[in-house]
C-alpha cells in the first residue's frame, strides 16, 4: 500500500480499484479518522462511470487495512434535484447550514462522517441529511447498513 499524503485537514490515500482497473485517490478528512471511536474506520468512496463504491478500512495511522468493492449501486434521487449553492444556503432552515457546509467540503459522506465535522450527533446529522435529500439538495446510495450522501452532479 502506498503511504498516505498528509496536508493540514486531509490525508490523501491511494489504492487500487479493480472496477476502474487503476489506482484511485481517496481524500479523507483527518477528523473522520482521528476522532473515531474504534478502528479500522470504514470509509465509502463513490466514484467512476458507471458509479461504484470502494469501501476502505483505514487504521489510526491512515493505512488501508482492507478494501471491499460494491460494483452495482443504485443512486436514490428526487425527481427534481437542486445543487447546493449560496442561494440554497440562504433559503434552507438555519439548522441545516452546518450540515450543508460540511457536505460541500466532503462532497460525499455518511451521517457519521458529517457528525465528526459538525460536532453534532450521528442521529441528528442522519435526520438533517435525510431532510436535505427529500428537499432534493442531496442524492444518496445505500452502502451496507448506512446511507452515503453526495451532492447532485458531483460524481
Amino acid at each position, binding site marked *: 500500500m502506498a503511504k498516505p499524503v498528509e*496536508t493540514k*485537514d486531509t490525508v490523501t490515500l491511494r489504492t487500487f480499484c479493480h472496477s476502474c482497473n487503476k489506482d484511485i485517490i481517496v481524500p479523507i478528512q483527518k477528523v473522520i479518522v482521528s476522532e473515531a471511536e474504534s*478502528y479500522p474506520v470504514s470509509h465509502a468512496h463513490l466514484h467512476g462511470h458507471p458509479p461504484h463504491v470502494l469501501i476502505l478500512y483505514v487504521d*489510526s495511522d491512515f493505512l488501508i487495512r482492507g478494501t471491499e468493492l460494491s460494483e452495482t449501486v443504485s443512486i436514490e434521487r428526487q425527481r427534481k434535484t437542486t445543487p447546493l449553492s*449560496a442561494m440554497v444556503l*440562504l433559503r434552507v432552515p*438555519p439548522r441545516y447550514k452546518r450540515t450543508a457546509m460540511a457536505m460541500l467540503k466532503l462532497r460525499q459522506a455518511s451521517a457519521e462522517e458529517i457528525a465528526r465535522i459538525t460536532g453534532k450527533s450521528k442521529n441528528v446529522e442522519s435526520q438533517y441529511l435525510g431532510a436535505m435529500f427529500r428537499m432534493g439538495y442531496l442524492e444518496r446510495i445505500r452502502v451496507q447498513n448506512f446511507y452515503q450522501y453526495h451532492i447532485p452532479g*458531483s460524481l
Partner: protein
Amino acid sequence: MTNKSIRTWTSSTAKNLAISVHSFKGGTGKTNLSANAALALAKRGWNVALFDFDFRAPSLNALFQRDGIKYWINDWLAGKCELNELLIDLSAEFQTKGQFQVGFTNPSSRAINDMVQHSMDEEWQARVLQLVLDGKELLFERHHVNFQIFDTSPGFAMSSINAILAADELILVIKMDQLDIVGTQHLIQGVYNQVLGRKPELIINKVPCSMLQTQEDYTKLQADIGKKLGINVIAVIPCFCEVMENMGQSLFLEKNPAHQFSQSIDQLASHFESVN
C-alpha cells in the same frame, strides 16, 4: 474491530486564513483596504493571494494598472483555466518578502454582463461555490498560501455570499453615513446572524477628521458603533485627503509607508495575524 490508541494528528503550524471584505454600500473603501492589507501581509513575509470578487464593478485591475492579463477569475469560473494560472505574482514588483499574488476580474462590460446573467443561475452558483471552496483548500495546502483575501461586491450579491461562505474571517466595512449604518445593521441581522450564523468584524473607514480629534473620540466611536451593530470594531480609520488624492492609482502603502493610513493598515495586518 480493534480498539487502538488514537493517534494525535498535529495541525500544521502554518497560518491559513481566508478573509472576505464586504460592505452594505459601495464606496466604503473595501478595495483600497483589501489591497493595502494584502500588501502589508506580503511585506511581512506571508504568502498572500488577493482576489477581485466584485464581479459587478471589478476594480483591482485599475488599482494595479495591469495590461495583457491572460486569464481572469471569469475564465477560472468558466472552466477555461486553473486557479494557479490566473494568479499574477507581483512579489518582485512590490519587493515583498512573501509571495504577493493577485487574481483579477475582467472589467469589460461584456464580462460584467455575463457575470450578472450567471448570478441567478443556481447550477452556475453551485459550481462557483464548489470551485471557491476547493480553490481555497488548494492554495492553502498545495501552494502554501497563508492569507487569501476576497474583495467582494457590496450588498447581497451571490458572488459575495460565495466568498463569505468560504472565508474564515468576515470583515464588514462601513463609512460614517446613517444610510450605511442602518443598511449594515440589516445585513448583519439578515445575512450574517440569521442565515450564516456567523459574526463579522467591522472596520469604520473614511471617518471625518472632525469626529476624531482625540484618542477618546476613537474609543467612543468604536464603542458606540460596535454596540449599535452588535459586533466587534477592529479599526477606525480617518478620512485622509492624501488617500483621496491618490485617486486609486496605486497602492497607498507602497508609496507612503509612514502615513497614518498606512499605520492603520499595518495594525489591520497585525489583527489578521492574530486571528486563530
